[in-house]
């Protein structure tokens, strides 16, 4: 069910006063819970719960032929699937715009932050490299999916081990104790604009009530590597800059919190 007029008005009214319906502050995250290695078959996996939003991410590794333009580096692909179980707004079938956007945002975060050292994923130049596949599955959507999928993806990467590689074949089921070559992991913070105020980590209703959103992905020390605005209201330069400042400030806190959890 889309948000009703009365609920939208109520949210705007409450946010205007600097409060939220669930009694959080405007820039306050819900409680974050992370469990890693929840899947027996995946090389790395993570379950993340923020408020009522739940996401599972898995990392699979495979030895494949490299792309011709990069014979000595591994490759990455990210997929997202919006299961109808997660929300009454998700439908069965081929990924829709929302799912593609979600996968692309996670992909760009992981790729542009260069958190995976792709050169180290080369097994034999021009013949075999490791391919990293990240799949994110929202289990329950209660808002703020982009940020939480990113957390799940990085947590899964961090927990991944290489499988055994023998006779040009990957021996699935036999894990080595070698971890993925990772640098500092990216953090995504999406800032939503409701009326004149900015909030992070919205509920589904707050997402509906917002007029636009900008997603920032960053690595630390303080560098925004990726940002994207969803279609919606036009933003002035100052607004975008203040949104970036909020994202950097809150991202830093979030980064610390997540690194402590994984």
């Amino acid at each position: 069910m889309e948000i009703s007029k009365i609920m939208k008005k109520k949210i705007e009214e409450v946010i205007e006063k600097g409060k939220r319906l669930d009694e959080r502050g405007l820039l306050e995250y819900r409680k974050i819970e992370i469990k890693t290695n929840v899947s027996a078959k995946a090389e790395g996996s993570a379950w993340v719960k923020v408020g009522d939003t739940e996401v599972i991410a898995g990392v699979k590794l495979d030895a494949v032929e490299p792309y011709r333009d990069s014979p000595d580096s591994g490759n990455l692909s990210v997929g997202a699937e919006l299961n109808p179980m997660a929300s009454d707004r998700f439908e069965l079938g081929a990924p829709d715009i929302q799912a593609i956007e979600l996968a692309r945002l996670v992909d760009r975060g992981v790729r542009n932050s260069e958190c995976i050292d792709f050169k180290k994923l080369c097994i034999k130049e021009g013949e075999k490299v490791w391919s990293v596949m990240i799949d994110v599955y929202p289990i329950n959507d209660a808002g703020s999916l982009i940020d939480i999928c990113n957390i799940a993806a990085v947590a899964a990467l961090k927990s991944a081990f290489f499988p055994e590689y023998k006779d040009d074949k990957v021996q699935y089921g036999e894990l080595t104790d070698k971890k993925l070559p990772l640098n500092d992991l990216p953090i995504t913070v999406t800032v939503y604009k409701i009326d004149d105020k900015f909030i992070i980590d919205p509920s589904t209703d707050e997402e509906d009530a917002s007029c636009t959103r900008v997603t920032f992905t960053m690595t630390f020390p303080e560098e925004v590597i990726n940002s994207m605005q969803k279609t919606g209201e036009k933003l002035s330069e100052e607004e975008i800059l203040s949104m970036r400042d909020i994202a950097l400030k809150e991202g830093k806190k979030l980064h610390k919190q997540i690194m402590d959890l994984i």
Partner: protein
Amino acid sequence: MTEEENPIEEEIKEIPREIVVPGEVLAGKDFLPGEGTRRENEEIVASRFGLLEKTDKLVKVIPLSGAYIPRAGNTVIGQIVDVNFNGWMIDVLAAHQAFLPVMECFGYINKKDLTEVFTFKDIIVTKIRAVKPRSVELTMKEKGLRKLEGGMLIKINPTRVPRIIGKAGSMVKTIKDETRCNIIVGQNGLVWIKSDENDVEREIVAKKAIELIVERPFHIGLTEKIKEFLTKNKK
């Protein structure tokens, strides 16, 4: 709605119950299948997840989860999703969209522009007139049925609605009196809360009290607990 006597309430306290899952065999052929069950060959099996209830001849399951299944006579809260030439399509959180024909609406209606009465994303409290295999028909011709203005709308598990209403509306009355809010509980799990003084704080307290009931529906002495919670949060 609030005035209705709620039969489930009494039973909850008396009989200790067994939790059953869909497909579970509940009884043999000596029994009759009631709500939430079906007959399969000689046996009666559960078709919903919930609490088992066996009386002399009848077996039924009181659901603990699941979507709203519309029934004629239920008062529900719905949102306008479409306006046709002869009525409105309304989302009542059921499997099918519900239809409210112009004939079943109150007052004078300018047939040239139905959006003057109800328009997109309006919230109304309405009653189910009839349930047909592929549609639900609504009516507004009864006392208390109207468009809702202001306040806030929350969504809860529809199987918890009887608990929120309480015996003869006692639970919802407690919340109403303590928070001085006007509350309408739709059978489909949508709850509308509006403070008499337009005070958001009070609305949030009422919302939290309702969420507390949803979380622990089988808590012993729940009414006392809710009273305690409300007094503590009184401002």
